[in-house]
């Protein structure tokens, strides 16, 4: 059984920050989708190494970390397109 509390709260905070990630007008900075793919891989590795934080036993991952990144990406894709 996966505990839903950290998943929802982590997703909400990530979403709130994700909606503010917007490209600047006239800027040469460009962060394509590959940045987020690599970031997702890194976060999954960190979450696996960390284990079910804090002291949960529901999965092998730190679910809050993964839901936070999911919230950031969903927020960026929905409202953060600029």
């Amino acid at each position: 059984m996966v505990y839903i509390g950290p998943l929802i709260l982590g997703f909400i905070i990530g979403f709130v920050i994700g909606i503010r990630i917007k490209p600047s007008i006239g800027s040469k900075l460009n962060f394509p989708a590959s940045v987020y793919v690599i970031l997702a891989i890194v976060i999954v590795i960190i979450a696996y190494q960390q284990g079910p934080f804090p002291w949960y036993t529901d999965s092998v991952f730190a679910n809050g970390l993964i839901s936070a990144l999911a919230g950031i990406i969903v927020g960026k894709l929905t409202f953060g397109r600029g």
Partner: protein
Amino acid sequence: MTTTILKLFVFPASLILICYGILTILGGHITPGGGFQGGAIIASGIIFCLIVYGLDESPIKLSDNFMASIESIGALGYIFLGLAGLFTTGFFMYNLGVDIYHIVPPYIVNIFDYPDPLHAGIIPYLNFLVGLKVLVGLSAVVITFLESDKLLKNMESK
């Protein structure tokens, strides 16, 4: 001076910092850390971007309205949870999700219960709200400094 390496590295690193800050908030009722510490870690990720990319080119843009809204939601939510305990039991900030004195009807306990193995009640929600407030508050300090610096340069040029 901002180099290309910094510009490539800082945004992904700040996102990892933000995720770590969120994880600190989520474990606040069990482990050391909590709303303030997690909010400060998230703010450090945002400030990292602001310092390296500058206020105009930072990928994470916090507008005035956004900051005011999130800070208000954090403060009002905190007060709401406190008043909910006061109106239900007579004790301000009574932990309705745990109900240690067994004076609250079960359906109210179920509403404020936090779904994890410890059932910490309103404590994780308070951490969440404090985290929102702190992440915006600390970022606002740096944004104000950067804006005032820009303003001073404009005044000097005139």
